[in-house]
């Protein structure tokens, strides 16, 4: 009979999911290369009790109808690829992408994954890898005797070797971009995976074809704005509370109906 109980329950559920998402954003407010996400809500189905424009008698039509909605649901977590703040580290293997694009890394399974977290390290073989050990693609190896590493804005990696006057070029970093970066799937560990929604990656050299420039010695901070998240959390909590009041009101009304025949 009354939908209000169930409608309010859907409202509470979306706010619960909203708070879960906010918590995830806040927890990652110091994660290098993290991109915050935002939950998007939509209204559910409507029951058409009266259709506007239906004839109310032979000559007039009802100007308005009566539609009763059945609540809300969360439809998407929209990842927001706004640039995070640059933090200077002076570490030669820290890089930021200024603009669009992703670093490509090779997973142990052989698949490619994509990341904005440009905080790289060297493996025991001198290969450039992420903090969790995935190799940068295309693979670049730094000679053990190298004394300094320099990375250009176009991704060219060169090293200084003792006894040689000129810097030695050891490779060029390639970036990938997608038609719809928001369609990428988060794998955790700062990595994203290609999906049918993101489209095929198009790889290219940095600082060309719409891809961003590489800046050495910086990392890209998380783009989470903690103050904004806290404000959203307060709003979510209040709406959650209001929805719970609908449930208690609905319960009271149903209780009164039962009293009629007591």
């Amino acid at each position, binding site marked *: 009979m009354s939908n209000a109980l169930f409608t309010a329950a859907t409202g509470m559920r979306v706010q619960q999911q909203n708070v879960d998402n906010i918590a995830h954003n806040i927890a990652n407010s110091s994660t290098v290369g993290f991109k915050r996400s935002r939950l998007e809500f939509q*209204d559910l189905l409507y029951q058409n009790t009266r259709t506007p424009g239906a004839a109310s008698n032979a000559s007039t039509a009802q100007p308005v109808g009566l539609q009763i909605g059945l*609540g*809300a649901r969360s439809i998407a977590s929209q990842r927001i690829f706004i640039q995070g703040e640059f933090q200077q580290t002076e570490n030669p293997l820290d890089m930021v992408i200024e603009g669009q694009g992703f670093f490509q890394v090779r997973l142990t399974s052989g698949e490619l994954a994509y990341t904005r977290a440009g905080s790289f390290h060297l493996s025991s073989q001198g290969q450039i890898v992420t903090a969790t050990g995935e190799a940068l693609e295309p693979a670049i190896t730094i000679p053990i005797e190298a004394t300094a590493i320099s990375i250009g804005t176009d991704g060219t990696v060169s090293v200084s070797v003792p006894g040689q006057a000129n810097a030695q070029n050891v490779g060029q970093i390639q970036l990938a971009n997608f*038609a*719809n970066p928001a369609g990428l799937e988060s794998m955790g560990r700062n990595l994203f995976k290609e999906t049918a929604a993101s*489209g095929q990656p198009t790889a290219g050299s940095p600082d060309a074809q719409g891809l961003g420039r590489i800046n050495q010695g910086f990392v890209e901070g998380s783009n989470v704005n903690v103050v904004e998240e806290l404000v959203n959390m307060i709003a979510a909590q209040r709406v959650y509370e209001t*929805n719970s009041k*609908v449930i208690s009101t609905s319960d009271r009304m149903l209780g009164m109906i039962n009293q009629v025949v007591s």
Partner: protein
Amino acid sequence: MNPGLYAAYLGMRVRIRALDVMANNIANASTTGFKADRLFYRSLEAREFETERRAAQDNLASTQDAGQDTGELGAERRREETVSLRALGVVAGGMMDFAAGSLRETGRPLDIALAGDGFLAIQTPRGERYTRSGSLTLDAAGQLVTLQGDLVIGEGGPITVKSGEISIGEDGRITAGGQEMGRLKLMQFQNPGAALLKEGDALFAPTGSEPPLPATQTRVQQGMLESSNVNPVGEMAAMIQNNREFESLQRSVTLMMSMHKIASEIGKI
């Protein structure tokens, strides 16, 4: 049935409906581009009231018929009653509140808010639909779509956005990397309350009562979203009032029933 009792029943019924509508508004207090529903009450004319009553009694009769045949006499008596009664009740009508929701800044290039009465035109498998929810995204082919995956149509069909810095002008022109990609199709209605029907998923379906017109006065604001226009405080106040009215009606039903009881006891020796 006692007409007072029936009027009280109708009053309770619309207040249950009203709570359903408020519950939906509150559940959508965070839904981008959501427009609140309002319920208004109108008194039931005697003639209409009889039709409703007859429908209710026919239902009752048909359920009774299933058990036993009430016969011609029962039908005759009911018809007599409907002519003699002149009590009034209340029924509900709904309307959408198209007031603008507050704008919040997001900074995301594919978030747009519409300042003005326009709607974004969306192409769905069911036909053209309209929305105020400007949280857009791209699909794998780079076409501008809603979160549901339905194409956002421009004045020249679907809009494909090439990679590059996307900028959307106040007139809805979309440029990426300095090239124009298309222009959003913005439509409006003279009387949106009659011309549109909510379909869920933040979409409005046209009822066909009037053709959509180009929304020339609507400005597009990039990097902003229109919040739901539900005011939770107002909804709460209305909900409390609704609850109290329901309570009064319930009391009146209890009172009428006890009067019935007293009346039936008068004849007792």
